[in-house]
């Protein structure tokens, strides 16, 4: 199925001490949507915006290191691990409680800890589900978490971490849509763990899994909306 992609680009032009910002469209024709999927070792064109974790440079060229898709001139990973950034929300489970630190399992290869402060009144127990924020990553080995909050008696769902941005959606549109349809409270961790409580949990789970499975497809917000409407109609009947 051939189709055309329009990329909106900006260009800064300096002319006689003045700076102009020029907008223009770049047109890419794709013979096939699937042709835009890149595999490890594929050359990345120079004008592609990229996430630092999914390419490497060799000489003057950059190459892909994971399964990626070219989306509006951006390199978006299809598979890959979570590389924590400051301020990201995570969902995890308390693994070990010591005097001064609490170790949290984020289902990730990095160790995650909360440093207890005397002001914290939370009594952590092993197996508790918590939500927290990434404060910093120390030495590529330990994630330090802050602002922990206990989450009680809900369901834990695990998806691939690279799918999380799509599940959240632009300005929370996707997750907002799912939770308004299902009346569930959904907390999404960037590490791929998702906490769901209340409402139609089964529907929320299947909607999230649908987004994760089809994360690379265009027009997803609309198709998920249709899916939710259809499913709710069935249950109401």
């Amino acid at each position, binding site marked *: 199925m051939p189709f055309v992609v329009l990329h909106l680009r900006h260009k800064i032009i300096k002319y006689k001490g003045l700076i102009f910002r020029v907008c223009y469209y770049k047109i890419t024709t794709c013979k096939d949507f699937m042709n835009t*999927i890149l595999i*490890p*070792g594929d050359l990345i064109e120079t004008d592609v915006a990229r996430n630092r974790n999914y390419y*490497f440079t060799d000489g003057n060229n950059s*190459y892909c*290191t994971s*399964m990626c898709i070219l989306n509006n001139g951006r390199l978006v990973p299809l*598979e890959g*691990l979570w590389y924590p950034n400051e301020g990201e929300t995570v969902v995890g489970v308390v693994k070990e409680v010591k005097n001064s630190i609490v170790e949290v399992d984020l289902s990730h290869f990095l160790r995650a800890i909360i440093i207890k402060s005397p002001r914290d009144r939370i009594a952590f127990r092993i197996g508790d589900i918590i939500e927290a924020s990434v404060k910093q990553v120390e030495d590529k080995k330990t994630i330090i978490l802050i602002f922990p909050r206990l989450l009680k008696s809900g369901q834990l769902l695990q998806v691939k971490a690279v799918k999380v941005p799509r599940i959240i959606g632009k300005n929370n549109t996707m997750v907002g849509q799912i939770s308004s349809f299902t009346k569930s409270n959904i907390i999404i961790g960037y590490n791929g763990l998702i906490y769901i409580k209340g409402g139609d949990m089964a529907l929320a789970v299947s909607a999230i899994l649908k987004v994760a499975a089809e994360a690379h497809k265009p027009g997803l917000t609309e198709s998920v909306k249709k899916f939710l409407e259809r499913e709710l109609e069935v249950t109401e009947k």
Partner: protein
Amino acid sequence: MANMLNKPELLRDDGKRLDGRDLDELRPLSIKANVLKNAAGSAYTEWGNNKVLAAVYGPKEVVPRHFLDPERAVIKCRYAMAPFSSLSDHGRSGPNRRAIEISKVTKEVFDNVVMLEEFPETAIEISIEILQSDGGTRAAGITTAAVALANAGIPMKDLVYSVSAGKIKDKIILDLDMLEDNYSDADMPVAVSPRTGNILLLQMDGELTRQELNLGLDTILEAGKQISKIQRQALIDVYE
């Protein structure tokens, strides 16, 4: 090496091989990625009569701890043949000396391309199970494991492939099956990084001249384009 006294004729009168292939023709190859639920990545390959399953787990905790490398991840690799994989004998389960050697050279292939320095103090596990064997299983194993690694999202500099070349009399042949493996005059499995053309695995036994070695490698690099294409399609088909 099998009994050389009953050595069968490996080339037909019309110059083709016993299974009707041309000298530089691959056996039918199909790969499917993402076939196992628990594994981070997996792939299943049917290559001629070979059936190979590969799975990848990790990065995960290193056990036992003394294998740990504070600077980079370590790759643990297991290549094993199922006891029911060959027609003749019921094999003994568990790795034998041959399997341990193949596991080692396979690990060393992937040490070159996986970006190990991203995950210090962890292990990446590659597990290759040969369910049905008909010659060239180590090459099939490496080709399958590369797809499984990409499917797992483990960052790699390239998607490697592997295939063997060999010699019958003075002719160079590609992708030896079991019979050719047993009776040919040389067998040379090779793994290649297609982006750079670097050779990551090279094993050989038999007899080859310098020219034949070069011809063999050229044949492999040419056939590699087809293998790479099939690997790519397998990875893309996951998102259909």
